[in-house]
């Protein structure tokens, strides 16, 4: 895998993900469930893309973007984690499970930095709004149109920059970190993936389950587990 074209491609995907997350379309191509498999496909490791999509989709869904509230930029972190996992697996710096978990932990830092990035973009947006006020006094419709498009472009560039730089830093530092972990720990790191998946289900469940709805969960769950148990006994 060539480094320069890959950084360019990852940055482009980062920009699109940043744009889709909050600034533009919101057609959900930014969700890890879509973005990670696409990255996997582009770089020839669809199975890693699938795993990352499955693991990273759910935890960030409980960050509800109501009003001005915004949590960590998990979608950008997921892009970095997937790209780094693929790159490091190809470099063969350690086993796949260990690389995936280390990349996910690194992506948490990237997601956190994303908060400051969004705050900065919002300040720029306010300046654009003031410029639009001046354009309105002149009746300059074209300028208002461009100012709004500029807002999207800023978000795109910020997302691209964050993802590109994080990816480059990751390929410098993560191999050093990964070499500290003995490959015999692969199984333990593999189990952590199930822990992360469980976390996602538990976190999303908080959005639906309350005293009123709990029986709508528990009865089908009991029936399902019963069928599963009987199935495993008779097979």
């Amino acid at each position, binding site marked *: 895998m060539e480094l320069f074209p890959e950084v360019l491609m990852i940055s482009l995907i980062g920009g699109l993900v940043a744009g889709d997350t909050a600034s533009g379309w919101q057609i959900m191509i930014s969700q890890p469930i879509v973005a990670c498999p696409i990255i996997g496909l582009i770089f020839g490791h669809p199975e890693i893309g699938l795993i990352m999509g499955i693991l990273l989709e759910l935890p960030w869904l409980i960050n509800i973007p109501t009003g001005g509230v915004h949590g960590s930029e998990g979608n950008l972190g997921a892009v970095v984690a997937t790209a780094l996992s693929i790159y490091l697996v190809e470099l063969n710096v350690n086993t796949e499970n260990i690389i995936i978990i280390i990349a996910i932990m690194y992506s948490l830092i990237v997601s956190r930095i994303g908060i400051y990035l969004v705050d900065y973009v919002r300040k720029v947006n306010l300046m654009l709004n003031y410029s639009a006020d001046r354009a309105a006094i002149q009746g300059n419709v074209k300028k208002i149109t461009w100012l709004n498009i500029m*807002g999207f472009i800023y978000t795109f560039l910020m997302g691209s920059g964050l993802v590109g730089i994080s990816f480059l830093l990751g390929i410098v530092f993560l191999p050093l970190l990964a070499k500290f972990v003995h490959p015999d720990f692969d199984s333990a790191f593999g189990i952590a993936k199930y822990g992360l998946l469980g*976390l996602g289900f538990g976190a999303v469940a908080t959005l639906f389950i309350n005293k009123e709805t709990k029986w709508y969960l528990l009865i089908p769950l009991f029936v399902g587990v019963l069928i*599963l148990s009987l199935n495993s006994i008779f097979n």
Partner: protein
Amino acid sequence: MALIKKIDLLKILLRSFYIQSTWNSERLLGLGFCFCIIPIARRLFNNKQDLVNFLQRHLDFFNSHPYLVTYALGSIANIEQQAILKNWEDKRPISVFKTRITGPLGAIGDTLFWQLIRPALGLLGVVLLLLIGLWGAVVYLIVYNLTHFSVRIKGLIDSYSKGFDIVRDLSLRGAQKYFRILKYAFSSLLAIEIVIVISKIIHTPFSWSGSFVFVISMLISFFIMRRQKITIDLLIVIVVCSSIIIGLII
């Protein structure tokens, strides 16, 4: 007599995908709203002062859920047209109307999409990725966006035909009963998905240890996140580290 043409409404619809591009903490969607409504400014105003007043009116504070914003855009298009056809002297009712629908559009949209549909389809998508691989992502995108686009299109058409009267359709209290039904349905869907995931984990090399860690982590995360004591980032660190320790012990 209609001054606004269908092509203008189509332009508004396409522009509405960029309504959040300049979201800021002072005017929220102010500039985005003005950007979206510009196609009708070009159609309705030849006089410069009227155009300036129109732009200033719509650069003001505005907020909505991004998908439901077409309800505001369509009704404002209708009302602005009525104001010209009926020669309104005072256009303050337009701004008052915008302020009035801000609350319901935000509350209904946030609950319907961010708290119900997106998480439920996210869960469904994860299970589909497990079952059918990459096609799961395709199915997720199609199902989600069918809902999303239909809300945007319906919002624009309905609100353009109803104008002020669209307020009657945007009752949060009226929407609550549908939210409750969705919560029941999604709770049962969640149960089925949990069973499917466990049945998949059982067929991996980590069968029992993987299922055990999945269930324990799910329960702990549910109770911790319900109390909202820690952020999801910190919970991920705790769960991953604990799972590795459990993996080492097993």
